[in-house]
């Protein structure tokens, strides 16, 4: 696709014109090379060293990784991530699909409703965390309110309960993102050809069959996108956990992102922190790389 200036122009001019685009792109290339890939390599290297408070360059082989998987808190973090990510993805997709299908029924105030469903995406996870933290707090929030209404035995103390606290993070995260997933599915629905559906309907297919057989299969790309977005957000989730539970009670809601931060910066186990970051990167790469690959190749 490379373009050359008209032949009439001078040779040096030609060269300059040829080099200019690359010259303009080069600062970005340098920045990405250093601050993305260079830093990745640096952290990767640290994960094989005995770094503590400060980076050290003493290689210790796989020791950090071995230790990492022996640490209870990491175990908790991984388990929590699995619970959180799967519930978060499934609920967001189910809710998003339901709302999108309902909104696709010639709803009169659709624009307004869409705006309401999507506004949480504009908020910081910290704001979301604060709102839900106090709303779910048994002392002043939902539990206290319902009891005040007369249902004395009502109890909802998940956020203070080690076994249930992780689910409160799912609740808040779903609240924040499900509207976005709805918008993705809605856009997908709008891309489906009406004629085919009309024909199927005339043939006597029930509404349910119509959606199950024709509509939902055509939403595959939207599902793919939603999955990639949600999975990658789940793995990175840090702010929400910090604001909502602070990783507690105890370490009950520790996730890999909070683990990495506390081991690196407060517990001075930089080597182990780096190792945990590497594992996070690997997990995300396993999802993102094939996706980027197929997307960019398709384009050609």
């Amino acid at each position, binding site marked *: 696709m490379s373009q050359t200036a008209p032949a009439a122009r001078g040779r040096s001019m030609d060269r300059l014109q040829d080099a200019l685009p690359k010259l303009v792109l080069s600062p970005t290339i340098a920045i990405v090379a250093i601050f993305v890939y260079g830093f990745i390599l640096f*952290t990767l290297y640290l994960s094989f060293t005995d770094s503590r408070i400060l980076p050290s360059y003493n290689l210790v082989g796989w020791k950090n990784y071995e230790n990492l998987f022996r640490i209870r808190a990491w175990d908790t973090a991984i388990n929590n991530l699995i619970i959180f990510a799967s519930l978060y993805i499934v609920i967001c997709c189910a809710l998003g699909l339901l709302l999108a299908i309902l909104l696709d029924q010639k709803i009169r105030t659709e624009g307004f409703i869409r705006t309401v469903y999507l506004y949480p*995406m*504009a*908020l910081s996870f910290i704001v979301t965390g604060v709102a839900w933290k106090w709303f779910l707090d048994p002392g*002043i929030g939902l539990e*206290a309110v319902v009891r005040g209404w007369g249902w004395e035995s009502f109890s909802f103390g998940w956020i203070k309960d080690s076994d249930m606290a992780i689910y409160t993070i799912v609740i808040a995260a779903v609240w924040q993102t499900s509207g976005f997933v709805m918008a993705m599915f809605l856009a997908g629905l709008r*891309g489906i050809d009406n004629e085919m559906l009309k024909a199927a309907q005339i043939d006597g297919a029930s509404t349910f069959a119509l959606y199950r057989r024709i509509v939902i299969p055509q939403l595959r790309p939207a599902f793919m996108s939603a999955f990639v977005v949600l999975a990658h957000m789940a793995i990175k989730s*840090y702010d929400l956990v910090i604001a909502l539970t602070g990783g507690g009670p105890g370490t009950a809601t520790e996730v890999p992102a909070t683990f990495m*931060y506390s081991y*690196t910066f407060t517990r001075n186990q930089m080597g182990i922190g780096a190792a945990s970051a590497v594992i996070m990167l690997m997990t995300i790469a396993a999802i993102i790389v094939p996706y980027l690959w197929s997307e960019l190749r398709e384009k050609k």
Partner: protein
Amino acid sequence: MASAPTTEVITTGTGSPDPVGPHRRFFTADGLARVTIYAILILFCIYYLLPLYVMVVNSLKPLSEITAGGMMALPRQWTGAPWQSAWSTAQVGVDATGLKPYFINSIIMVVPAVALSTIIGALNGYVLTKWSFRGSTLIFGLILFGCFIPFQMVLIPMARMLGLMGMAGTVPGLVFVHFVYGIGFSTLYFRNYYAAFPTELVRAAQIDGAGFFTIFWRILLPSSGPIAVVCIIWQFTNIWNDFLFGASFSDFDSQPMTVALNNLVQSSTGVKEYNVHFAGAIMAALPTLLVYVVAGRFFVRGLMAGSVKG
């Protein structure tokens, strides 16, 4: 907000804006079904609005009304005191400065970071589409991947790098970090937008003797308004809402709003002033909410850009 909820942005050109297309109506026309649909939709409106209601209502009532179990009720006694406290007197970290200085930090941080990353993104997008060369798709892929890495991977070396550059714990340091990791998305937006821009126009201008920058300035830039708005809104929302970089690379006096809000809520040693927390939370949310209300169309477009391929 989510650092990068836009993976699917990747390919498609201008991106589909609001999903408007063939609305359909397959649930049979009988009244009951319609009523049920509306009921469900309204129920979910309440669900999404509830936390906002809780924040607003409780930021306007005295603390005693909240602790007495009246979180869902309207204030019996309306008061602006929590707002005043959150803004200028609340204890954030060590000092009783309120959130005001941190709000200002966030503004000083956001404006240059957004401007820089948008300008660079526009130039990159121009090169990658109208002057693409062998390997430019690969380069784009490599830039793009940088958007999705867990930033935990760069925290340690970035902390050292900022130290070496003498920018550790400063607002300019944060500007730099956000600029660097904002380039990926801004490049993505402009690349996809310019990909749909007729290349013939560029060729024609070239034959007329226009150079690289002239073409960009005279031909592409004038029609870049919409994507620039999308990009600016996206970067603004992301950078304003960032917490991880703010928490990692700022000192007490350079903290952005999100970090200060979190400190306010987590570290209050004495009585927990829920009403002040809610007022602070709204303050932190207000700029991005305002942008959403005013230019929601562009925000959604940024989120969705190209998510749908059929």
